[in-house]
Protein backbone atom coordinates (compact mmCIF):
# COMPACT_ATOMS: atom_id res chain seq x y z
CA UNK A 1 0.00 0.00 0.00
CA UNK A 2 1.03 3.61 -0.48
CA UNK A 3 1.46 5.74 2.64
CA UNK A 4 1.87 9.48 2.85
CA UNK A 5 3.99 10.38 5.87
CA UNK A 6 3.84 13.90 7.28
CA UNK A 7 7.14 15.29 8.55
CA UNK A 8 7.36 18.28 10.87
CA UNK A 9 9.88 20.86 12.02
CA UNK A 10 13.49 19.73 11.58
CA UNK A 11 12.45 16.46 9.93
CA UNK A 12 10.62 18.36 7.21
CA UNK A 13 13.68 20.50 6.67
CA UNK A 14 15.97 17.46 6.49
CA UNK A 15 13.68 15.81 3.94
CA UNK A 16 13.26 19.03 1.98
CA UNK A 17 9.48 18.49 2.01
CA UNK A 18 6.66 18.44 4.55
CA UNK A 19 5.53 14.97 3.42
CA UNK A 20 6.88 11.91 1.67
CA UNK A 21 5.15 8.99 0.03
CA UNK A 22 6.41 5.45 0.58
CA UNK A 23 5.32 1.98 -0.58
CA UNK A 24 4.95 -0.67 2.13
CA UNK A 25 3.35 -4.11 2.43
CA UNK A 26 -0.32 -4.26 3.45
CA UNK A 27 -0.54 -4.52 7.22
CA UNK A 28 2.76 -2.74 7.74
CA UNK A 29 3.48 -1.21 11.13
CA UNK A 30 4.40 2.38 11.89
CA UNK A 31 7.95 1.20 12.61
CA UNK A 32 8.26 -0.39 9.17
CA UNK A 33 6.91 2.75 7.53
CA UNK A 34 9.44 4.91 9.36
CA UNK A 35 12.24 2.53 8.29
CA UNK A 36 11.11 2.93 4.68
CA UNK A 37 11.09 6.73 5.05
CA UNK A 38 14.68 6.62 6.30
CA UNK A 39 15.75 4.47 3.39
CA UNK A 40 14.42 7.18 1.11
CA UNK A 41 15.83 10.11 3.12
CA UNK A 42 19.38 9.42 4.27
CA UNK A 43 19.47 12.66 6.28
CA UNK A 44 16.89 11.14 8.65
CA UNK A 45 18.88 7.98 9.37
CA UNK A 46 20.62 9.39 12.41
CA UNK A 47 17.38 10.34 14.17
CA UNK A 48 17.04 8.38 17.37
CA UNK A 49 13.99 9.84 19.11
CA UNK A 50 11.28 10.15 16.50
CA UNK A 51 7.72 10.49 17.73
CA UNK A 52 5.13 8.58 15.73
CA UNK A 53 1.50 9.45 15.22
CA UNK A 54 -1.37 7.72 13.48
CA UNK A 55 -4.68 9.42 12.89
CA UNK A 56 -3.54 12.42 14.94
CA UNK A 57 -2.78 10.40 18.05
CA UNK A 58 0.56 9.26 19.35
CA UNK A 59 1.18 5.59 18.56
CA UNK A 60 3.85 2.97 19.16
CA UNK A 61 6.05 1.47 16.42
CA UNK A 62 4.09 -1.81 16.48
CA UNK A 63 0.85 -0.07 15.53
CA UNK A 64 -0.52 -1.70 12.35
CA UNK A 65 -1.52 0.91 9.79
CA UNK A 66 -4.62 0.65 7.59
CA UNK A 67 -4.75 2.15 4.11
CA UNK A 68 -5.61 5.84 4.14
CA UNK A 69 -4.70 6.47 7.77
CA UNK A 70 -2.87 9.73 8.50
CA UNK A 71 0.73 9.04 9.51
CA UNK A 72 3.18 11.58 10.93
CA UNK A 73 6.73 11.42 12.28
CA UNK A 74 8.44 14.27 14.11
CA UNK A 75 11.21 15.17 16.55
CA UNK A 76 10.73 15.68 20.29
CA UNK A 77 8.33 18.55 20.85
CA UNK A 78 9.18 22.01 22.20
CA UNK A 79 5.96 24.01 22.41
CA UNK A 80 5.01 26.30 25.27
Amino acid at each position, binding site marked *: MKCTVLLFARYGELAGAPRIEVDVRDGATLGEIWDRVRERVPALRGEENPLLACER*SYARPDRVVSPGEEIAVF*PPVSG*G
Partner: protein
Amino acid sequence: MKEARPAVPGLYRIQDGPLDLQEAVRAVGGPDRGAIATFLGAARDHHGGRGVVRLEYHAYRPMAEAVLREIGEEIRERFGTPHIAILHRVGTVPIGEASVVIAVASAHRREALEACARAIERVKAIAPIWKKEHYRDGSRWIEGSSADPTATE
Protein backbone atom coordinates in the same frame (compact mmCIF):
# COMPACT_ATOMS: atom_id res chain seq x y z
CA MET B 1 -9.25 11.08 19.08
CA LYS B 2 -12.04 9.42 17.15
CA GLU B 3 -14.31 8.10 19.87
CA ALA B 4 -17.24 10.28 20.80
CA ARG B 5 -16.45 12.57 23.72
CA PRO B 6 -18.95 14.34 25.91
CA ALA B 7 -19.03 18.02 25.13
CA VAL B 8 -17.06 19.76 27.86
CA PRO B 9 -16.49 23.44 28.45
CA GLY B 10 -13.17 24.66 27.21
CA LEU B 11 -11.33 26.61 24.55
CA TYR B 12 -8.45 24.93 22.71
CA ARG B 13 -6.86 26.60 19.73
CA ILE B 14 -3.70 26.83 17.66
CA GLN B 15 -3.67 30.26 16.07
CA ASP B 16 -1.65 32.64 13.95
CA GLY B 17 -1.20 36.10 15.37
CA PRO B 18 -1.33 37.54 18.89
CA LEU B 19 -2.97 35.68 21.76
CA ASP B 20 -5.51 37.44 23.98
CA LEU B 21 -5.25 36.58 27.68
CA GLN B 22 -8.63 38.21 28.31
CA GLU B 23 -10.27 35.90 25.80
CA ALA B 24 -8.97 32.90 27.74
CA VAL B 25 -10.10 34.39 31.06
CA ARG B 26 -13.55 35.17 29.68
CA ALA B 27 -13.85 31.65 28.28
CA VAL B 28 -13.36 30.04 31.69
CA GLY B 29 -14.96 32.55 34.09
CA GLY B 30 -18.40 32.30 35.61
CA PRO B 31 -20.38 33.23 38.72
CA ASP B 32 -19.76 29.92 40.50
CA ARG B 33 -15.96 30.18 40.16
CA GLY B 34 -13.95 32.08 42.72
CA ALA B 35 -10.51 31.53 41.24
CA ILE B 36 -8.89 31.89 37.83
CA ALA B 37 -5.24 30.98 37.43
CA THR B 38 -3.45 31.80 34.20
CA PHE B 39 -0.08 31.12 32.69
CA LEU B 40 1.36 33.11 29.84
CA GLY B 41 4.55 31.98 28.13
CA ALA B 42 6.32 34.79 26.30
CA ALA B 43 9.17 34.94 23.80
CA ARG B 44 12.31 35.68 25.78
CA ASP B 45 15.25 37.71 24.46
CA HIS B 46 17.87 35.20 25.62
CA HIS B 47 18.43 31.47 26.01
CA GLY B 48 21.51 29.80 27.39
CA GLY B 49 23.43 33.08 27.34
CA ARG B 50 22.65 33.72 23.68
CA GLY B 51 20.58 36.64 22.41
CA VAL B 52 17.31 35.65 20.74
CA VAL B 53 15.75 38.05 18.24
CA ARG B 54 12.48 36.24 17.59
CA LEU B 55 10.84 32.85 17.93
CA GLU B 56 9.06 30.80 15.34
CA TYR B 57 6.61 28.04 16.21
CA HIS B 58 5.36 25.25 13.99
CA ALA B 59 2.60 22.82 14.84
CA TYR B 60 1.02 19.68 13.51
CA ARG B 61 -2.07 21.76 13.73
CA PRO B 62 -5.08 19.39 13.81
CA MET B 63 -3.27 16.96 16.10
CA ALA B 64 -2.02 19.79 18.32
CA GLU B 65 -5.55 21.09 18.84
CA ALA B 66 -6.71 17.56 19.63
CA VAL B 67 -3.86 17.14 22.12
CA LEU B 68 -4.65 20.46 23.82
CA ARG B 69 -8.20 19.21 24.26
CA GLU B 70 -6.93 15.91 25.66
CA ILE B 71 -4.77 17.82 28.12
CA GLY B 72 -7.88 19.73 29.15
CA GLU B 73 -9.64 16.40 29.74
CA GLU B 74 -6.74 15.09 31.80
CA ILE B 75 -6.73 18.23 33.93
CA ARG B 76 -10.48 18.13 34.39
CA GLU B 77 -10.34 14.54 35.59
CA ARG B 78 -7.36 15.10 37.84
CA PHE B 79 -8.31 18.38 39.49
CA GLY B 80 -12.06 18.58 38.97
CA THR B 81 -11.67 21.87 37.10
CA PRO B 82 -13.78 21.72 33.96
CA HIS B 83 -13.21 25.30 32.84
CA ILE B 84 -9.99 25.40 30.88
CA ALA B 85 -8.60 27.37 27.96
CA ILE B 86 -5.33 26.62 26.16
CA LEU B 87 -4.24 28.81 23.25
CA HIS B 88 -0.95 28.41 21.39
CA ARG B 89 0.42 30.74 18.76
CA VAL B 90 2.25 29.55 15.63
CA GLY B 91 4.40 31.42 13.11
CA THR B 92 6.70 34.24 14.16
CA VAL B 93 6.40 35.38 17.77
CA PRO B 94 8.23 38.67 18.45
CA ILE B 95 10.19 39.04 21.71
CA GLY B 96 7.90 39.89 24.62
CA GLU B 97 4.75 38.52 22.99
CA ALA B 98 2.86 35.45 24.17
CA SER B 99 3.42 32.05 22.59
CA VAL B 100 1.02 30.22 24.88
CA VAL B 101 -1.82 31.22 27.20
CA ILE B 102 -3.56 28.93 29.67
CA ALA B 103 -6.47 29.78 31.97
CA VAL B 104 -8.15 27.51 34.51
CA ALA B 105 -11.14 28.50 36.62
CA SER B 106 -12.31 26.71 39.71
CA ALA B 107 -14.41 27.27 42.80
CA HIS B 108 -11.24 27.38 44.89
CA ARG B 109 -7.75 28.70 44.31
CA ARG B 110 -5.68 25.62 45.03
CA GLU B 111 -7.13 23.49 42.23
CA ALA B 112 -6.98 26.37 39.77
CA LEU B 113 -3.31 27.06 40.50
CA GLU B 114 -2.26 23.42 40.49
CA ALA B 115 -4.25 22.66 37.35
CA CYS B 116 -2.69 25.61 35.55
CA ALA B 117 0.84 24.52 36.51
CA ARG B 118 0.08 20.98 35.38
CA ALA B 119 -1.42 22.13 32.09
CA ILE B 120 1.68 24.03 30.96
CA GLU B 121 3.87 21.03 31.86
CA ARG B 122 1.68 18.79 29.72
CA VAL B 123 1.59 21.23 26.80
CA LYS B 124 5.38 21.32 26.79
CA ALA B 125 5.60 17.55 27.12
CA ILE B 126 3.15 16.31 24.51
CA ALA B 127 1.67 18.98 22.21
CA PRO B 128 3.11 18.46 18.70
CA ILE B 129 4.54 21.96 18.46
CA TRP B 130 8.14 23.00 17.78
CA LYS B 131 10.06 26.15 18.55
CA LYS B 132 12.80 27.61 16.42
CA GLU B 133 15.00 30.26 17.97
CA HIS B 134 16.33 32.97 15.69
CA TYR B 135 19.58 34.70 16.61
CA ARG B 136 21.35 37.59 14.96
CA ASP B 137 23.50 35.11 13.10
CA GLY B 138 21.39 32.05 12.53
CA SER B 139 18.65 29.89 13.96
CA ARG B 140 18.13 26.60 15.72
CA TRP B 141 15.28 24.18 16.31
CA ILE B 142 14.67 23.45 19.96
CA GLU B 143 13.81 19.84 20.65
CA GLY B 144 12.69 19.60 24.16
CA SER B 145 10.56 16.86 25.49
CA SER B 146 11.46 13.25 24.97
CA ALA B 147 8.70 12.20 27.38
CA ASP B 148 6.89 9.20 25.94
CA PRO B 149 3.55 10.70 24.90
CA THR B 150 1.93 7.27 24.68
CA ALA B 151 2.72 6.53 28.33
CA THR B 152 -0.22 6.68 30.69
CA GLU B 153 0.41 8.94 33.63
